[in-house]
């Protein structure tokens, strides 16, 4: 079927190398998004009007714009408006961090607001200050319920990193295209096979993560139901 090129030369190593770039961008974005998202979520629950307006604007802007537009804004916009020339990879990490922070921030906000009032009352009765209550009672519970959506966000970021090739990052899809171009004349089926393999590579990364998220979610709701019954 003309797929021999996949096993010749360094094709597989190159694809895995590309996948490494993909994973590097995703992991850095997630690593920056988690702390920033928590900070944003906490600030969101403060009753400060100005802060609220700014954060809502930020959240809705990120929600409305396609991720590709965010990438373009960071990659091209930063060079012309503030004169900093980011490499494609750095621009990608910044764009995905902006996105991840907004999404996680909203999740943290929702989780904090969903904490039952009794939790606050019980903590105050026990003599904890507001700050202590927040730090030791509310936040840990909110963060635990955030783990499944957080894992989901990682899969979404991994999938979206494929867009980075459109701003010139040599990640796994771009490497795939190079392999296709290299084998174009000898192996006419190269495009078919390479894109199938690319799909498979992404699937191999994202599917276990999706399953994990689903499992964590089921586990969480089981535990919650258990707690409510007792």
């Amino acid at each position, binding site marked *: 079927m003309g797929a021999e090129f996949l096993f010749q030369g360094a094709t597989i190593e190159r694809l895995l190398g590309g996948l490494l770039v993909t994973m590097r961008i995703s992991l850095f974005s997630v690593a920056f998004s988690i702390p920033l998202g928590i900070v944003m979520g906490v600030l969101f629950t403060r009753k400060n009007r100005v802060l609220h307006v700014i954060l809502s604007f930020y959240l809705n802007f990120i929600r409305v714009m396609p991720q590709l537009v965010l990438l373009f804004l960071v990659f091209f*916009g930063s060079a012309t408006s503030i004169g900093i020339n980011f490499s494609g990879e750095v621009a990608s990490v910044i764009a995905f961090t902006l996105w991840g922070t907004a999404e996680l921030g909203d999740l943290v906000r929702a989780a904090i607001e969903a904490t039952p009032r009794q939790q606050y009352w019980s903590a105050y009765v026990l003599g904890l200050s507001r700050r202590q209550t927040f730090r030791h009672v509310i936040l840990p519970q909110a963060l635990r319920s955030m783990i499944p959506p957080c894992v989901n966000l990682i899969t979404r970021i991994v*999938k979206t990193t494929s867009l980075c090739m*459109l701003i010139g990052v040599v990640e796994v899809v771009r490497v795939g295209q190079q392999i*296709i171009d290299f084998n174009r004349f000898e192996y006419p089926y190269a495009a078919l096979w390479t*894109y199938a393999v690319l799909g498979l590579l992404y699937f191999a990364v994202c599917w276990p993560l999706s399953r994990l998220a689903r499992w964590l979610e089921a586990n969480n709701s089981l535990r919650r139901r258990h707690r409510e019954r007792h």
Partner: protein
Amino acid sequence: MNWGLVGSYVPFFVAAAQVTLYISFGGIVLALLVGLLCAVVRLWKVPVLEQLVGAYIEISRNTPSLVQLFFLYFGLPKLGILLSQEACAIICLGFLGGSYMAEAFRAALEAVPAVQHESAQVLGLTRAQAMRHVILPIAMKQATPSVVANVVFLVKESSVVSGIALADLMYVAKDIIGNNYDTLEALFLLVVFYAIILIPVCLLGTYVERRFTNGR
């Protein structure tokens, strides 16, 4: 920012917005059909088809839309399946959105109380009739908020079709940046046009969600 230039580029963006809207609309209609079909197959537990639908949903949700698009556009012609750019883009969005719509419909269908199924059966309706006249109308209402969210998602995802040189908003912006170096103007118009398209849909989503949660 040069406002004269911004004005001169507006017609290009209007034309591009039509491409974005056309592709998104086609993709959304296809996604709704695929999603509904998959959800019913899963609800009725049709053997074989149920497993196929399950596999389709996993594949569609765990691979990037760009790779799906490239496979359709660059890969399939090798097997003799030649599709136009527009057809590829619409099929790709339908393939991607179908699984998300399927989940939305499935959740809504499963939320319909068993008594509705039983009552329909007692009244002598066949399974298909019950689905058409009783279950779906109830489920549709329930599914609307997540369907609107998916619509927003699909319009946003339509930006990837610029990867196969379809002249949508993204492509025109990239063109202006690459040819004329009018980066700020192009990015400004890009953001404005996506906002014009998507903000009404988002507002509709908020409205629908509020209305349906209050009505219950």
